[in-house]
C-alpha cells in the first residue's frame, strides 16, 4: 500500500469510527421542558409492564402504584386508565430527605401513566428540578436519575419496535 493510500485509509476509518461513536451524541434526547414524556404504542397493561420491568432493571424499587382512575370511577367520574407509580432507591431517598427535609414533600418521585385510546402516555418531572434544593455535590444524584428516566423511556420506546 502506498503511503498516500495508507493515510487516506486511516483518515477514512477514523471518520467512520468518529461517526459511529458520535451518533448517540447527535440523537441524544433534547427535552424542551421540565417535564419528561414518552408515548408508548403499547396498550396500557403492556406499557405498564414494560415500565415496571425497566424500573426494576435500573435498580429502583416501585414503592406503590396509585390507581387514580379507580378512585375517580368509584366516585362516578368517567375516566380512562390512570396510575401513578412511586419509585426510588431506599439509600438515596433516606439520604436526601434526612439532609434536605424540604425534599420530603417530593419523595419518592412519581411517574404517571395513562391510557390514550389504544396507546399509553407516561409523564414525570425532570429530576433536575430538585437540584436547586440541594448542595452542588449532591446534584449528581438527580443527574443520574434524569439519565435513568431517559433510559427507562428508551426501553418503553424500544418495546414498540
Amino acid at each position, binding site marked *: 500500500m502506498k503511503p498516500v493510500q495508507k493515510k487516506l485509509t486511516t483518515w477514512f476509518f477514523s471518520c467512520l469510527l468518529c461517526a459511529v461513536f458520535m451518533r448517540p451524541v447527535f440523537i441524544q434526547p433534547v427535552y424542551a421542558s421540565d417535564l419528561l414524556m414518552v408515548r408508548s404504542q403499547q396498550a396500557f397493561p403492556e406499557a405498564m409492564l414494560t415500565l415496571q420491568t425497566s424500573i426494576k432493571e435500573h435498580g429502583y424499587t416501585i414503592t*406503590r402504584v396509585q390507581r387514580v382512575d379507580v378512585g375517580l370511577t368509584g366516585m362516578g367520574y368517567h375516566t380512562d386508565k390512570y396510575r401513578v407509580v412511586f419509585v426510588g432507591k431506599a439509600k438515596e431517598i433516606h439520604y436526601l430527605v434526612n439532609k434536605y427535609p424540604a425534599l420530603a*414533600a417530593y419523595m419518592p418521585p412519581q*411517574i404517571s401513566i395513562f391510557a390514550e385510546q389504544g396507546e399509553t402516555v407516561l409523564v414525570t418531572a425532570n429530576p433536575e428540578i430538585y437540584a436547586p434544593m440541594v448542595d452542588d455535590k449532591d446534584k449528581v444524584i438527580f443527574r443520574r436519575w434524569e439519565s435513568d428516566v431517559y433510559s427507562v423511556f428508551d426501553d418503553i420506546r424500544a418495546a414498540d419496535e
Partner: protein
Amino acid sequence: MKFPVIIKRILLPVLLLLSAGAYCAPHGKTLFARHCSACHGSHGMGGVGVPIALPAFINSVSNTYLTKTIRHGRPGRIMPAFEKLSDAQVVAIIKFMRKWTWKPAPNEDDTPVVGNKKHGRLLFARHCARCHGKDGQGGKGTGVTFSRKRDLPIIAPALNNAGFLAAASDVMIRDTITFGRKGTPMVSMLKAGLSREDINDLVAYIRSFTPAANKRAQAIHASGDLSPIITMASPYGMKETIENIKQAIINQNFTLIRVDYLDHGLVTKGHEDKSKVVIHFCNFKFLFNALAIDPRVGMFLPCRITVTEKNGKVRLTTVNPQRLSKLFNNHELDESCRAMHKVYQSILEDATL
C-alpha cells in the same frame, strides 16, 4: 474477485463516507418519537397536543411556520419551545412530518394582508369568538385526551398567543379562514358567506392581537408564592399533628386516602423510618377537573402532606402547587394550582393552630 482500481480507491471510500454521513444525520422519525409523539401521537393524529398530521393542516402550512412553532412553542398553551434542538434536527423533524402526506411544503408568503381592524373585530365576535374565545385565547383543555369527551378532534387554537402570532403569516391566517380546515370544526368562512374583504378585515384584527392580550394570564403565571414547598412547624407531637391534619383534610371537603411512612415499600415492613409520615388525600371533583385541564398533572397526585419529626420538633411540608404549575406551560392550570395552594395552606394552618 478484483475490483477496478477506480472503484477501490475512489468510489468505495466516497460511498462509505456518504453512508457514514447519513448515519450521523438527524433522523426525523426518531426525533419526532422523542420530542413530539408524546403529545401529538405516534402518527401525528393528536393526543395532549393537536392533530398535526391532518392533511388540511400539514399541507397548508409552510416550513417556516413549522420551524417557528417548534422554536417558540406556544407560551402558556402546553407546547414548549424547543430551543435546544439544532437547526438540522428541526429540519429533520419537518421532513419526517411532510412524509405523512408526501405533499410539498407551500411556499412561505409574507405579504402583509391589509384590512379594516374595526370591522374585523365585529366579525370576530360574530364568527370566531365562540370557539377561539372573546380575546382569541383559544379553547379550554388539552387535545384529544381521555380527560374530556372525544367529540372534537381539536381544541380551537389560541390566536392571541405570542408563539402563534410569531409563526403564522398574514397569508396563512387568511387562507385558513378562507378555506377552513377539513376534519376540524374550522369551516371555510368564504363558504359561510364572508367576502374576501371581510376575511382580510378578520386577519387585520387577529394580527392586532399582541402578547399583551395574554397579559393577565402571564401575570398570574409569573406571580404568587414560587418557593418549592409550603411548610409549617407544629406545636404538637407527631401523633396529635397527624390527627389534626386528618381532621383539617375533612374540613376542607377532601377525602383521606391513607397514611404511610415516607419509605413505605422501600424497606421491609417494620423497618420504616417512623419519624417521616405521609398523609395522602384527595377531592375527586377537584382531581377530575384538574385532569380535564391537563392530564399530566396526575404525577403530583394524590395530594399529600409530609410530617417529619426531628429532635422533638414536628414539621409539616407539602409541594407548592403554584410552583409546580410552572412546569406544565399551561396557563389554564394556574387558577387550579392557586386554589390548591390555598387548600394546602388552610390545612396546614388548621392542623397547627
